[in-house]
């Protein structure tokens, strides 16, 4: 068994173990143990990856493992990681770990809840380690489908509607991706020998005919873009997040939306650079609109989760925006932004869940002055907010600045002008973050029933602090992460530049 497959196997084993759990107590401890092992494994992966690189291993993919799965169609189970996937795996394990503790008190059908949650996580891990497009798509579906159950059963508000909307829109995206992947597959042999392949690297080396790229690039990009909340296919996000239970929002915004950005980069841009170059301008406009539109949309929302969902639209728009710039700095920024936003938004949703659990409302107008009553959650909320508006020393700043500097290095004036438009989001972000902080946490206590709320308990502290420490660590010392990603981006960008 290779180390990467463990990332899929451990969640599955955890799921089996949970099936034998007798009560909530056992269920959550089994989940926590499984995900703690997963977190340790991720840490081990990061260290061994860096160690390999330090030893001078310059192969594009490390820890590769390949077995034939279905030989007549040349489908393989191929895994391997580079700096980008390692970073994403680390993000996922942190968010899942924090998510388990954030749903510590999930009393209703707890076994089934944790099973679905961890199953979803295994899909996400599988997606990040796959190098074979077919396996990648399989894991993608594994990650997306449990979402329906998680929102539909354990959600709140109009949960059936939201779950259905979210699933259908994402399935629509999946359908596009499916067509795109098949298109890539059937165009993967320019020699005409019908020797097709799903393998990412082989396809990249062989190249896809430009005519096919023109047709399949927009499909693939849009398909992944739906999951990355690309305007105007983002409306599943506010409703879905608002109805989802805490841990699901965390996982969904923190990790699942990153599948969109990661897929758009790995599949759409990496395999079809010429078409990407030709058609980028359309999507650059769409993503720039996402960035600004999401931020403005968040300014007037009243529900905490809606604010955060629109904020996610804005931040994830920035990821896709940077990916489309197709230069090394911007792509690096995109990956850092994925990680940074993943941690930040997970933290936000965790805090919102905890606040909701106490006040039983998510409308900011019904709360006020909570800082005095629940100082721990208040302070963490403020720090998360500051990270979100890009305060130096926290991860958001690193990501946004890398993106802006990278995008502004583009030789084309059009790209630079759009970059300037996208930068205006930093002001609007400040407006909506401070608005929430001002109403929710500061000022006099507005609701007398809230005077006797209790502050965070240990599992809540553990969950939020895990995320907070990660955010601060990236913000204070970003160089190792940035260098790790840069090293892996170099061959990719060089190949793209050579093709163009």
């Amino acid at each position, binding site marked *: 068994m290779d180390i990467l497959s463990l990332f899929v196997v451990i969640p599955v084993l955890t799921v089996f173990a949970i099936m034998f759990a007798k009560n909530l107590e056992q269920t959550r401890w089994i989940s926590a143990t499984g995900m703690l092992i997963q977190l340790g494994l991720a840490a081990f992966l990061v260290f061994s990856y860096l160690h390999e690189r330090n030893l001078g291993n310059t192969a594009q993919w490390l820890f590769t493992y390949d077995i034939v799965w279905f030989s007549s169609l040349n489908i393989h189970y191929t895994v391997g990681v580079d700096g980008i996937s390692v970073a994403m795996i680390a993000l996922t394990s942190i968010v899942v770990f924090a998510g388990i503790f954030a749903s510590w008190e999930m009393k209703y059908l707890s076994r089934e809840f944790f099973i679905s949650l961890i199953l979803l996580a295994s899909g996400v891990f599988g997606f990040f380690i796959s190098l074979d497009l077919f396996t990648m798509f399989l894991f993608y579906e594994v990650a997306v489908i449990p979402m329906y159950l998680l929102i539909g059963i354990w959600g709140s508000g109009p949960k059936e509607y939201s779950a*259905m*909307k979210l699933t*259908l*829109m994402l399935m629509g995206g999946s359908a596009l991706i499916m067509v795109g992947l098949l298109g890539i597959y059937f165009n993967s042999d320019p020699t005409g020998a019908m020797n097709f392949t799903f393998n990412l690297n082989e396809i990249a080396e062989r190249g896809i005919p430009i005519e096919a790229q023109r047709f399949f690039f927009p499909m693939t990009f849009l398909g992944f873009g739906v999951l990355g909340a690309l305007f*105007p296919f*983002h*409306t*599943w996000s*506010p*409703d879905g997040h608002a109805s989802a239970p805490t841990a699901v929002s965390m996982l969904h915004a923190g990790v699942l939306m990153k599948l969109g950005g990661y897929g758009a980069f790995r599949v759409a841009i990496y395999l079809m650079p010429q078409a990407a170059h030709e058609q980028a301008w359309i999507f650059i406009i769409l993503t720039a609109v996402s960035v600004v*539109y999401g931020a*403005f*949309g968040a*300014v*007037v*929302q009243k529900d905490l989760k809606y604010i955060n969902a629109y904020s996610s639209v804005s931040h994830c728009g920035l990821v896709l925006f940077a990916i489309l710039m197709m230069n*090394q*700095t911007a792509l*690096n920024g995109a990956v850092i932004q994925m990680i940074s936003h993943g941690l930040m938004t997970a933290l936000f949703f965790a805090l919102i869940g905890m606040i909701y659990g106490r006040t039983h409302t998510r409308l900011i107008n019904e709360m006020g*002055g909570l*800082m*005095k009553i629940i100082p721990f959650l208040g302070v963490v909320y403020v720090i998360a907010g*500051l990270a979100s*508006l*890009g*305060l*130096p*020393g926290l991860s958001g*700043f*690193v990501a946004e*600045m*890398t993106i*802006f*500097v*990278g995008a*502004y*290095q583009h030789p084309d004036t059009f790209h*630079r002008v759009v*970059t*300037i438009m996208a*930068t*205006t989001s*930093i*002001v609007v972000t*400040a*407006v909506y973050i*401070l*608005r929430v902080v*001002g109403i929710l*946490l*500061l*000022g*006099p206590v507005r609701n007398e029933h809230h005077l006797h709320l209790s502050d965070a308990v240990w599992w809540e502290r553990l969950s939020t602090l895990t995320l907070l420490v990660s955010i601060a660590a990236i913000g204070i010392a*970003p*160089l190792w992460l*940035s*260098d790790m990603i*840069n090293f892996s981006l170099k061959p990719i960008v060089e190949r793209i530049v050579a093709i163009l």
Partner: protein
Amino acid sequence: MTNYSYTLLIPLIPLAIFLITGLAGHKFKPIVSGLTGTMGLTIAAFLSYTTAIRYFFIDGPANGMYPQIKAVSTVWLRFTDTLHIDLGILIDPISVMMLVVVTTVSLMAHIYSLGYMKGERGFARFYSFLSLFSFSMLGLVLATNIFQMYIFWELVGVSSFLLIGFYYEKPSAVAASKKAFIVTRFADLGFLIGILMLSFTTNTFDFITLTSTSGPIIAAPAGAAFVGISVVSWALILVFIGGAGKSAMFPLHIWLPDAMEGPTPVSALIHAATMVVAGVYLVARLFPAYALAAPDALHVVAWVGGFSSLFAAVIAITQIDIKRVLAFSTMSQIGYMMMALGVSGYGDHEGLGYMASMFHLFTHAMFKALLFLGAGSIIHAVHSNNMTDMGGLRKYLPITHITFLIACLTIAGIPPLSGFWSKDEILAAALHHNPALFAIGIGVAGLTAFYMFRLYYNVFWGQERHYHHTPHESPLVMTIPLMFLAFAAVFSGFLPFSHLVTSDLKTFETHTDLAVAIPSVLIALVGIGVATVMYRKPNSLPDRVSSSIKGLYTASFRKFWIDEVYQFVTKKIIFSGVSRPIAWFDRHVIDDTMNAVGWLVVTTSERIKGFQSGQVQQYAAVFVSSVVLLVLVFVYLFSN
């Protein structure tokens, strides 16, 4: 040559104290945090003084030029091979001068707060925020590159946000902190875009490269132009917008008066002496680029500075909250500094304005901090910010009274106090380059003298009010900083600035120009005289004057309705005009399109579900007839 790497300790000590008191402050008695902070700052101040003495007097200029030394530098984040954010320490005349200013005023504020904030809830929090601010400000002044400056620029912004909103249960303080952050953030957007444009043209962030006369901007300015102004000028104007936001220049000044909601030592430290001059410091940092590559941008600086200075002085005349008078006075004085930079040239005596601006920055930090701390002492005694609640306090607060008077005379520009010397150099530079700005400068000098003495007489003379309890002089921890700063305000004017801080790092000689000094002193005396007549004894003259110029008085009192304009822009345009329509559009157009797709599918299936009747024979009939139909079709198709 001295090794300056120990200067790393100067910002790191406050950082360490911030982390300790921030994370563990609630475990100790509050006073422990206060004393730790003060001790740390004392060490930092001592190190700064050592550095200043070494740099200016022991090492001195090498080959007639002060060296620019990168004491520490490490790569923090790498964008491309040439573009990377370094964190480091740049030692040169202005950074060393700022080190002294920041640590001195910060130390005074720390000591003063031991008395002023005594017994407040959140005493430890206050000190940890003060340390955070000191760290950020020191990082800002020591920055080796423009991106490092931006990083700390944002950090001082957030520390200012936290300290203005220190009384977070007070809605007005929350609103003020939010306003300060958002307005400066808006300005920072300009700064950021300016950085992006500069980095694109020059491919570097480094200050030494950017300002070097053989560097990419100055030696080879990029030819590309937009609306007749070169890209470099645009970039530098945008950078200046960032500076104007932080330094409360018109029209981005609206946050400064509201920022007075913060505790008074904070106003003294952040909103009078250090953070608000960051904009001036930024322009001074990039000064060679402004002067040699973008004279258009420098004109903008000069006129924005001159106008702000006059504008703020006019408003300061009518305000009744003593901290707001001082806030507008700060804005006016910073306008002076900006104007001085704007009228300056590069090199030798041409660079008089630059030297004067830095000189004024230094002296202003001392006397304005003194004014604010004095105001704090007054507020501490009478528990009100309002001038109408004060009067005749000179008997009760002798030390505060004397030091406040010194500060007022200093800011009015009475020789031989420090304000006179620095203001004189500014006016000389303005006269030399731009007579119109000189006229504004002289006018502002008169207004300044008038409104400061209006304040002084209203507080310490005039009619004695009914106080709830007899006002008493503040404790020694509060008066010692006052005395120290009064000392600095009196004597700092004798520092030979033209031998220390100059535009091209070389020294030059200055001499007092009587043609400038005499009118400026005269107009100051006139201002003081008018104020004495109007406010020394209670009389009806002020009311008669204000009612005779009712329109102007109201305009000034209402701060020319700039706040209302902003209110309109934010509430009506941003909220109601942009955000609400976007939210509506999202709910009702985009989302409904998605829902319409779902509705279409559901309706279609409703329509066709009648076929599934459950009647086996109906299915069979359809089946059979379809088969017959198909047979006919195929027979027709394939029979010929």
